[in-house]
């Protein structure tokens, strides 16, 4: 048997040979995404649980802890908006409307930037306000540090979500959609819905527990 040329070898090294059809690849991607979300669900669930356990075991919890920075509420509106915009993009894709997809993704991109900026602003405000709460929270540190922990863990996943969002944005600009790329758009939207739900859960925990 003659050895294949290098370019042919590289082509066969690619991942497409694993699946008989592009649809199979998308279906595998959907399952992979589901598992990823279960994993992340366990991660965020454990995070909330560990903070909850500390809080519930603390009988002398101080009552006058600082309230959340106002920027947090704008962040909340922004991330909910990302979900809505991505839903619109997916719906437009199903209708075959390129313009709708681009609009949806454009709005989502802007809202993600707003969310991230608001988070940074909220951290700066929280950092400025910390010294005045330092004494009251010395033996209940999670009361003020919890905000950092929750938002930092969440925003690392937001930053991760920007990668597929940027990719589908690029495909939309190029108007270059294949079955796999359409699948990626759908998966990106699901991931951001998940981040949205996690944000709401963390926000409720911060409001009700910390």
């Amino acid at each position, binding site marked *: 048997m003659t050895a294949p040329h290098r370019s042919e070898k590289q082509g066969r090294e690619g991942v497409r*040979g694993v699946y008989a059809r592009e649809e199979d690849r998308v279906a595998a991607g959907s399952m992979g995404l589901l598992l990823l979300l279960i994993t992340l669900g366990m991660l965020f669930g454990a995070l909330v649980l560990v903070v909850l356990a500390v809080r519930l075991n603390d009988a002398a919890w101080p009552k006058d802890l600082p309230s959340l920075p106002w920027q947090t509420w704008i962040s909340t509106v922004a991330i909910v908006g990302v979900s809505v915009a991505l839903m619109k993009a997916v719906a437009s894709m199903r209708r075959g409307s390129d313009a709708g997809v681009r609009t949806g993704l454009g709005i989502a991109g802007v809202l993600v930037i707003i969310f991230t900026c608001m988070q940074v602003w909220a951290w700066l405000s929280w950092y400025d306000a910390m010294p005045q709460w330092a004494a009251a929270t010395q033996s*209940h540190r999670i009361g003020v540090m919890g905000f950092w922990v929750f938002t930092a863990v969440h925003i690392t996943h937001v930053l991760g979500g920007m990668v597929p969002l940027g990719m589908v944005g690029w495909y939309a600009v190029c108007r270059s959609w294949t079955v796999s790329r359409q699948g990626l758009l759908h998966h990106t939207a699901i991931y951001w819905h998940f981040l949205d739900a996690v944000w709401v859960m963390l926000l409720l925990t911060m409001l009700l527990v910390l």
Partner: protein
Amino acid sequence: MTGDPRPLEQPTLTDNYLTYTRGFLSWALTLDHKRIGLMYLCSVLLAFLLGGIFALLVRTQLLVPEGLIMDQDDYNQAFTLHGGIMVFLVIIPSTPAALGNFVLPIMLGAKDVAFPRLNLMSYYLWVIGAIFMVYSIFGGGLDTGWTFYTPYSIDQNSAMGGVIPAVTGAFILGFSSIFTGMNFIVTIHRLRPKGMTWFRMPLFLWSIYATAVIQVLATPVLGITLALLAVERAFGIGIFDPTLGGDPVLYQHFFWFYSHPAVYIMILPAMGIVSELIAVHSHRHIFGYSFIAWSSVAIAMFSFIVWGHHMFTSGQSPLVNVVFSFITFSVAIPSAVKVFNWLATMYKGAISWNTPMLYGMGFIFLFVIGGLTGLYLGTLSTDIHLHDTYFVVAHFHYVMMGSALIGFIGGLHHWWPKMIGKMYNENAGRVAFVLFFIGYNMTFFTQFMLGSHGMPRRYATYPADAGFQMYHIISTIGSYMMAIAFFMMAAYFISSIFGGRRAAANPWGGRSLEWQCTSPPPHDNFSEQPEVGDCYDFSVLRWDEATQGYVWREDVDRPGEKSHA
């Protein structure tokens, strides 16, 4: 009838995955699961060498009561690094990532795993995690024990500066493990060939599947726990530090919520390997297939609800202790189901005393000892006495090394001819096994006695008049014997690459799909999707002297072929 006495496929060395492309980059950037499996194997064995050196240092130190070679701080680092490296870098990834990566897609008749790029990324995450872990030696040292227990690990004045690099390493290794698990679950769901229903899968795949479920569900809990530990140590966030309102015992709960299932991440794949070894080398249909398959799932489920038995002495309520003790005993049921089925498979089988079979039988022997001594530790009253003694050390080495690692070594011997295309020296393999087996029991069985006589674990010295020294000497000699056995293995494996006899496609007489492709397999595994039969029906094979392997019997139709009669 098919009258062709050919081997399952003619072996060829001209177009296999090893020679398909050449050069460093063709390996470093490969998406081929077989190459990635081999890269994992080399990396894991390198880590095993490092962890083994630390083990030998620990054993040498304990030869004399006052300690032979180290001061107490160095001893603390030696046993911590031995534990951390062996658990996170060796045993957890050894079977799933190294052997699983190589074998799983071929067993399924697939060309690769579901997400080849993610697979490569998992490998590099392992490498990065390993670098962080090893860096902890130079980045201030690590002396917390492999469990990183708080408050010691967050105390800047006591624990050494290597805590954050080591914890970061374990965090990254956790994500490598998660991605591998996700990949395997999707691969098994989506890439099974026509005819391979769930209950026609090889049992190794069942065990890998159960392991992957644990990896996906439990590892993120460890991930966030270790991340919080690092942040606690760096910034003092008040979760685990009692002086800041945190709860150090909470760390133990979350750590063991992962780390007890992690014991099953380590041992379930080994059990899957043993199911293959026992059936193939006994040339007898596996007994109680569905019981073995379901027992893997049952063990995976039980693994999530027994973590509290690591904390009987931590001040948990007596009721919680009783509940955890009861559930812990329940794990014995699916474990015993497996053992009984393996024994029943061997009964009246035509056992070939090949090296992999010796490891399979060694596994059963050592696992039974490890399991039965676990009952002493699951019992509340005896656990109080034995807690933090060498009895615990012996027990978990019987489970983790005597079972999980022996399974891996057995699997390595079993699939080595398939991986490399060469046979190793069988006699050398048998001698190494005997040396290893005797050395192993000398090392660890004596530790049961040490522990029951009160020798605490993690002590660098011991009283000269306590009667411990003889046990320690025997234990240390045993560890040297094991080291010699491992070097023997390395020697005959390496020499087989250069001078070994060429391996037939099916040297042992296996029926699962990996034995239907050449040794070593071609780049794409199979030119077309293979037909699936009963992977434990060995009656259709016969030994062929010419190829030194098993071939299809002439009077039996192959799956997918119609009878010519």
